[in-house]
């Protein structure tokens, strides 16, 4: 992208020669960071795959105890938030400050809705004694240990995903503040773009988590 030199120097850091080089570097750095995130979640997806292969029946039964409706609602909420995030990035590209703020706020609200629903679901799990530990009990299967494995993975995976959402929400709040202060323009909106990438990544993780955790045995034998 070619823009006027005096605009470039506004946010050009001293180690770079051009704004294009700086933007390329940020973008490559963000993608590499997302690769590390894939590897991070990958460890848990591997554990899930191994245990689901070892104990398919128990995993099916445990999966049916999750509230698929709430999971589906949350999936929709998160997809919408990705959409509003894209619109925010586009508005940033066009340098329309107010529109950026509106869409970032919408994204943040949708993120909060997701976390709220998630908290409600977790609370339900606590009340139903589905949290691994001495009080654990899952109806309909004699293999209580293996059922705890499923819920260990459920809480570890959705917990770390939620942690990423919380961090994302913090970053969005920061972006909203910076946009409000006029830090960004059509010539420099890299942070909006980068945090957009992060937000989409967190979204995609959920896109995998939802079917793997909630939908594996919906049409199996009912207990």
């Amino acid at each position, binding site marked *: 992208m070619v823009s006027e030199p005096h605009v470039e120097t506004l946010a050009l*850091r*001293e*180690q770079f*020669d051009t704004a294009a*080089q700086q933007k*390329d*570097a940020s973008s*490559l*750095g963000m993608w*590499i*960071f997302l*690769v*590390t*995130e894939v*590897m*991070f*979640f*990958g*460890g*848990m997806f*591997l*554990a899930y795959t*191994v*245990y689901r292969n*070892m*104990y398919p029946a128990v995993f099916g039964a445990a999966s049916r105890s999750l509230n698929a409706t709430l999971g589906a609602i949350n999936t929709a909420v998160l997809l919408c938030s990705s959409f509003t995030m894209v619109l925010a990035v586009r508005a940033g590209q066009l340098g329309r400050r107010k529109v950026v703020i509106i869409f970032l706020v919408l994204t943040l609200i949708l993120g909060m809705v997701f976390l709220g629903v998630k908290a409600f679901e977790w609370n339900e799990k606590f009340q139903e004694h589905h949290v*691994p*530990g001495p009080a654990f009990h899952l109806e309909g299967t004699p*293999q209580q*240990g*293996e059922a*705890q*494995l499923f819920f*260990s*993975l459920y*809480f*570890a995976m959705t917990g*770390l995903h939620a942690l990423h959402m919380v961090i994302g929400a913090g970053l969005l709040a920061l972006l909203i503040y910076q946009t409000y202060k006029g830090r960004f323009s059509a010539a420099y909106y890299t942070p909006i773009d980068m945090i957009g990438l992060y937000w989409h990544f967190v979204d995609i993780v959920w896109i995998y988590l939802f079917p793997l955790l909630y939908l594996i045995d919906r049409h199996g034998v009912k207990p």
Partner: protein
Amino acid sequence: MITAAVEEQQNYLNAGYGLKSWLLTKDHKRIALLYLATITFFFFIGGVFATLIRIELLSPHGNLVSSDTYNKLFTMHGVVMIFFFLIPSIPATLGNFFLPMMIGARDLAFPKLNLLSWYLLVIGGLFAIFAMVAGGVDTGWTFYTPYSTTYSNTWVVATALGIFIAGFSSILTGLNFIVTVHRMRAPGMTWFRMPLFVWAHYATAIIQVLGTPVLAVTIVLVAAERLLHLGIFDPARGGDPVLFQHLFWFYSHPAVYIMILPAMGVLSELVSVFSRKRIFGYSVVAFSSVAIAVLGFLVWGHHLFVSGMSLYAGMVFSFLSYFVAIPSAIKVFNWTATLYKGSISYATPMLYAFGFIGLFTIGGLTGLFVACLGIDVHVTDTYFVVAHFHYIMVGGAIMAYLGGLHYWWPKMTGRMYPEGWAKLSALVIFVGFNLTFFPQFILGYLGMPRRYHVYPDEFQVLHVLSTAGASVLAVGYMLPIVYFAWSLRYGKLAGSNPWKATGLEWTTASPPPPHNFDQIPVVTHEAYDYSAVIDEEVPVG
């Protein structure tokens, strides 16, 4: 006066004074020195544990420390040396300092991230030190489950948290290097004009970025199992402790290459400059670094030959482990071929390089022993394995680290180290190292298990030899500390290019100015073009 002229010139050391100018610096050279101080500190902590281990093993009856304490000693020796010294050693110091200079950049792509990664290492280190002071940890540096998750009554979580945080330091360094190599090269610095040091660090960075997150999540799961009673590796709930081993070694085997690949990069520089020759088979050496990074991810299973893995998987991992030896061997052969008809000089860095080539070859070849299924069953968890990886990590990585430190010391500080003392220390370290670890090959082959401090009387002679060697080694490591410090004040002024080397880092002043180059260089030659300086002797002494 020359001295006055040098002092007047602005460089990265006199660009600012005071604690704040160091702790908030964004200059990759200053951050490299912060790392240097930090990892030297951890090296000596790890060294203290090693010393206690070796003293204990002087007698076969275990009469210095209790078994519990001994478990903590070897655990903390491993944790400190691997995660807080070897992993950051060459990349975070020499790599941080010279990677941007070698490709003609003013700094790394993300200077603030670079500083953050140093802070992360320090914070992680503080957690680890807290765990040590509070009572230690005794799981072995490998944290095998279910001992680490259920039975150990020591500071597992604090140590694991320290490693987790330090892991992010490593990830950010790798990320910074990859982006820097892709986006910050000077005009004309094509991929195949880059020094092999840069190629090696690029390959290392790939491993750091792909491997470390897996260790991070594994540690999170162990901590969650200890604290929250999630049961992902708990056999009582159908969990599989061997899954932990797979996840752990998926990082921790490639981690060996995080330690040795940068060392190989240093070696390529040293061998080329001190034999006044272009490195033999440049592109093959460059690609072998990448090949090691890729193949290194496919061999982790050789740590699990006796852990209940299928024979078929064992055979595949055994084959792949042989396979990864090929690019390593290519490097050794190419360095040797570079020496052929070279104009070799025996400055201290070259002595370390020779030490590396010999010791790494022994370490590598014994690696083939343990990659072989049948022999591995015999030597698993014996001193043979201990000797093998110390030949790679101490005989290889630390030798290259010290060689590189001597080679670039004049550039980093503007002063020469005392050549006579340096040569003596190289010799002492080489002798001390072999005396420490060669007997351990024999011990292991005879059946001495690792991690035991009570052993049959017949092994005592070899253990005493090993401890004697460790004492010599300790003296060898103390010497550079003393004369490097001495040289800061009394060393001869180095000038910009004391070795008559070709790299871009030698075209700028010593110590370099804050932004490395007064003018960004335009590169017209490949690295290692010694045709112009071939007849000039390297000044020694």
